[in-house]
């Protein structure tokens, strides 16, 4: 994967060497279904949480100015603390996602590759 690319072909569209049957079988396979389930199992709640955190910021800034300016430490107020807390929150969510995918999903993708990719019974 890391070497130089192969000599260019005349038609550089994404390669389509698999047959439709091979793709359909891969789509219906257990590893692929598990991949979809595991990915959605993280992504959907993560996006909901992420949207919720931003929605609360919007509500505080738009509708509760007294809460936004409420002092936390000296002149540092709730609006500033909440805004700054979003930075580590978003980063941690991203980091946990990458760890999760590498631990839970990549082994399934390897399994799918062994069944349907290069070197499988199809070749």
């Amino acid at each position, binding site marked *: 994967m890391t070497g130089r690319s192969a000599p260019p072909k*005349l038609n550089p569209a994404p390669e389509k060497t698999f047959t*439709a049957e091979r793709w*359909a079988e891969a789509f219906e396979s257990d590893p692929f279904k598990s991949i979809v389930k595991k990915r959605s199992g993280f992504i959907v709640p993560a996006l909901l949480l992420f949207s919720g955190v931003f929605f609360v910021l919007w509500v505080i800034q738009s509708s509760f100015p007294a809460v936004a300016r409420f002092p936390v430490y000296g002149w540092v107020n709730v609006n500033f603390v909440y805004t700054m807390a979003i930075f580590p929150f978003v980063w941690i969510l991203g980091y946990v996602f990458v760890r999760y995918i590498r631990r839970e999903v990549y082994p399934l993708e390897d399994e799918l*590759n062994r069944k349907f990719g290069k070197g499988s019974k199809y070749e």
Partner: protein
Amino acid sequence: MNKLSIALFLVLIAITLVITYWSAKRVKTTTDFYAAGRRIKGWQNGLAIIGEFLTAAAFLGIGGLISFYGVDGQIYSITWFASFLFVLLVIAEPIRNSGKYTFADIVSYRLDERKIRPLAAINTFLISLMYLIPQMVAAGALSKLLFGIPASSGLIIVGVLMIIYIAFGGMLAATWIQVLKAIMLLTGAYVLAFLVLRQFHFSVNELFAAVANAKDLGPSWLEPGRWLKTPWERLSLGFTLLFGTAALPHVLMRFYTVPSKQHAQGSALWSLTFMLIFHILTFIFGLGAAVLVGNQLIKSLDSGGNIAVPLLARTVAGGQGTLTGELFMAFLIAVAFITIIAAVSGLCIAASSAFSYDFWLRVVKRGNQSHAGQVRTARLAAFGIGVLAIAGGLLLRQVNVAYLAGLAFAIAATANLPTLIFALYWKGLTTKGAVIGMLGGAIVAGVCVLTGPQFMGKQALFPLANPGIVTVPIGFLLTYLGSVLTKDAHSEVMFKELAVRSRSGLEAES
């Protein structure tokens, strides 16, 4: 100041030309030209991606905005940063797994290529050009402000350098110039933040107290509402930036430069990390400039606030007339200018690939063009785009073209994102649905921006300057309705292929 800045700028330009020469010798295939040979590592691509984003608007603009209006300006920092989580979760890996060079590769994979690719190419071309022209105009204005040279000369210099970088070095040169720029920008930003905080004994509370107690400022600088007056304005700006960023063609293209899905995912996380370490500092620059430089002086030199950060650098590094103060200011000015050139180069390659690869090779030539011919067309396209951008910048430099950047974000979020998301995740997408969504979305976004306050000012017919909260749902709805009302058996069959390929990396381009 000007001579020192120009000298530093020339040194940086010399370095970028060496990078371009080095890259040009390595660009032999179309993959080298469009995707840097897919040899860029995750952290390198992460730096290059933030290089695309840390434009003059981010580096100079947010600081000026916070200086003039207070912490409301942080919305740009927080939303640009957060948009990369969306990219990481939903887009980065599937894009790398399914396409070859461009956004159009993904949508035409399962849809009727003859209908969808030209449209995707036109959208990509227009988005990139609309984002490029304001950058060129800003480059001219900044060159006058920062170096004291005429705006038209500055604009032409930027355009010519952009053509040289891309026509000779392609994506490889663009990537390494972005990496260089990102490293310098982050270094400069941290030195500046250190020097500013030192003035306040490294206490954010002391900085805030200085803002609250300053004669021309006050506690309102630390509260939301000074700039964004209505809740809808705030929500819509966030929405447009969040979703527009995720569908900008020059950002999506970056995920093809890495060798594998792991690197694509890694580069999105790296870019999130680098964005974090830059954007947590913007309030220090803005509030620091407001207190230490003063908004009156900043406004007297530039009503847009773009000079706030360089002036702050001079003040905290020793002050006007001191060697350290002038040197640090000159360094930041030179970096800011390199920032602009690197940013326009990324846009240039996105626009030229839309023409040379999506339109010329895939539509006109039906994929039949020799390899050498493809690279030649790509180089000519880069030259043409560069000339167009210079001409557009010169023609429009007296006009306020800030709305064009807003329009680019709005079209990306409204027209491209729904098709991209549905192509990857929804079985029911049809070619007609995608055409209706892309065409309709672009028209809706265009109408809302051109009848909105950014273009019409106080006579605006549409109330929101950034229309994302209205147009993005319309874009999704148009694509959905267009799809459920039409049939496309081919797309349904191909969905299985694309779903497996995008989510597992099976048969991904190497």
